[in-house]
């Protein structure tokens, strides 16, 4: 085996990554982290407001090609319509920091959702990324389902086909609907975690 003279250089870069900030996460089986955020209509929304209801959190960045896959195809709006009609609270969260890709104020969020036919209960603005970091939201989309008792019952991808190709949606396993069907029927969620996929959430550095 030959020596690799430049591995040392790689390690220097790794060292320069520095200590990682302690990473919190919404962990399946544990209470969902509390939050209060302003929605796109200017109203304060807390997780506690939805006590007794099943809640979906969807991390959103309208400029991300993975998000565009699910909005361009109408898949995300279809899920929002279907599950809010069944009494589920669907919260679309934007954690894009000011100046970052996908950053929106309330007016822009409303305009985009109107244009796309979005049917979330509310769009929440998490400009400082506090809620996103508390949940450990990594990608757009990254999906969480919280049961009526406030316990995280699903954390992961929207489906099992990590791509930006709309054609993959038809054959993908829809984890969110599967989790919602089970939790709204009072059953435990079979596939409670999966690999989230997408663009990185555009937090402030």
């Amino acid at each position, binding site marked *: *085996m*030959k*020596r*690799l*003279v*430049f*591995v*040392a*250089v*790689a*390690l*220097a*870069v*790794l*060292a*320069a*990554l520095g*200590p*990682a*900030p302690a*990473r919190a*996460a*919404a*962990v*399946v089986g544990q209470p969902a982290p509390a939050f209060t955020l302003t929605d796109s209509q200017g109203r304060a929304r807390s997780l506690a407001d939805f006590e007794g209801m099943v809640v979906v959190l969807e991390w959103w960045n309208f*400029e*991300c*090609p993975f998000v565009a896959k699910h909005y361009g195809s109408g898949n995300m709006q279809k899920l929002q319509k279907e599950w809010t009609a069944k009494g589920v609270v669907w919260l679309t969260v934007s954690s894009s920091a000011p100046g*970052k*890709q996908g950053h929106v104020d309330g007016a822009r969020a409303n305009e985009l959702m109107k244009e796309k036919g979005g049917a979330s209960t509310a769009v929440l603005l998490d400009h400082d*990324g506090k809620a996103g*970091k508390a949940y*450990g939201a*990594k*990608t757009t989309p990254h999906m969480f389902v919280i049961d009526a008792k406030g316990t995280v019952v699903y*954390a*992961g991808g929207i489906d099992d086909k*990590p*791509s*930006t*190709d709309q054609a993959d949606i038809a054959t993908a396993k829809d984890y969110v609907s599967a989790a919602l069907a089970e939790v709204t029927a009072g059953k435990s969620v079979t596939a409670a*975690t999966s*690999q989230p*996929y*997408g*663009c*990185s*959430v*555009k*937090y*402030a*550095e």
Partner: protein
Amino acid sequence: MLPFGRFSRGVLSAVAGLVFAVPGASAQAPPGRHVKASLVAETDAVRPGQPLTVGIRLEMEKGWHTYWRNPGDSGLPTRVKWELPAGFSAGEILWPYPEPFRTGPLVSYGYEHEVLLPVEMRVPPAVPGPQVRIAGRVDWLECLEACLPGRADVSLTLPVRAAAAPAPQAALFAEARRRLPKKDPAWRFSASSAAGGVSLVVRPPRGTDLREAYFYPVTPRLLDYAQPQKLTREGAAHRLALARDPNGAPSDRLAGVLVAGTSDGSWAVEVDVPLVSGPARTSLKQERNP
């Protein structure tokens, strides 16, 4: 702190002019994209019945990156769909070890500047015609801060001959091979579950002092990529403490690439060992790396 790969880029740019002068190598990059993909071969001809190594070359604009086989917290690995002459078959992409990118609280794994992803091809004993055309559709995700999906149809035409010489771009392959993780039984590993994490016990070859190490995980959904990896010495062994993804999936193996800085230079070694529960032993019998 030196940017990773400065040495590699020097080597690569020295041969770049030669590569573009090679007939048969083609590249298409849609306008507005930030990564150029092309297909190159290690030799200047195809020999019937002899393996052929080709490579997907990705040249990235400054700051842009593409992803490793495990992209980390976000991103997608580069993929290729081959269109090959009858009797040819392609192996999997051989992945040079990547570099980590941190954005906020997230870490992803990939390549900046330039990378060659080698692929070994099986060539049938009889190859009709004076030349063959190897083509593929390459899909990747390119990111600066924002990401764009990239796609290119690449191809390469090579003469069929009994003998072949190294192609001018052979230096790119030599460079990529230096970064391919090696299977090396002189490095011994064992892995066990620890509270909230995974412990990788590393025993370097006798007489080699391990000074620094970073583990690039291949096992999906096991580890929290953004957490620091703490290296501690335990007698002749070293323990690398890795954090688990709290929403991850259980695994009975730990696979990945250990990049190690030692008294005897730096190494990239393949790790693929059982992941057992309970504390990892550092002093008794060690699992050998297969």
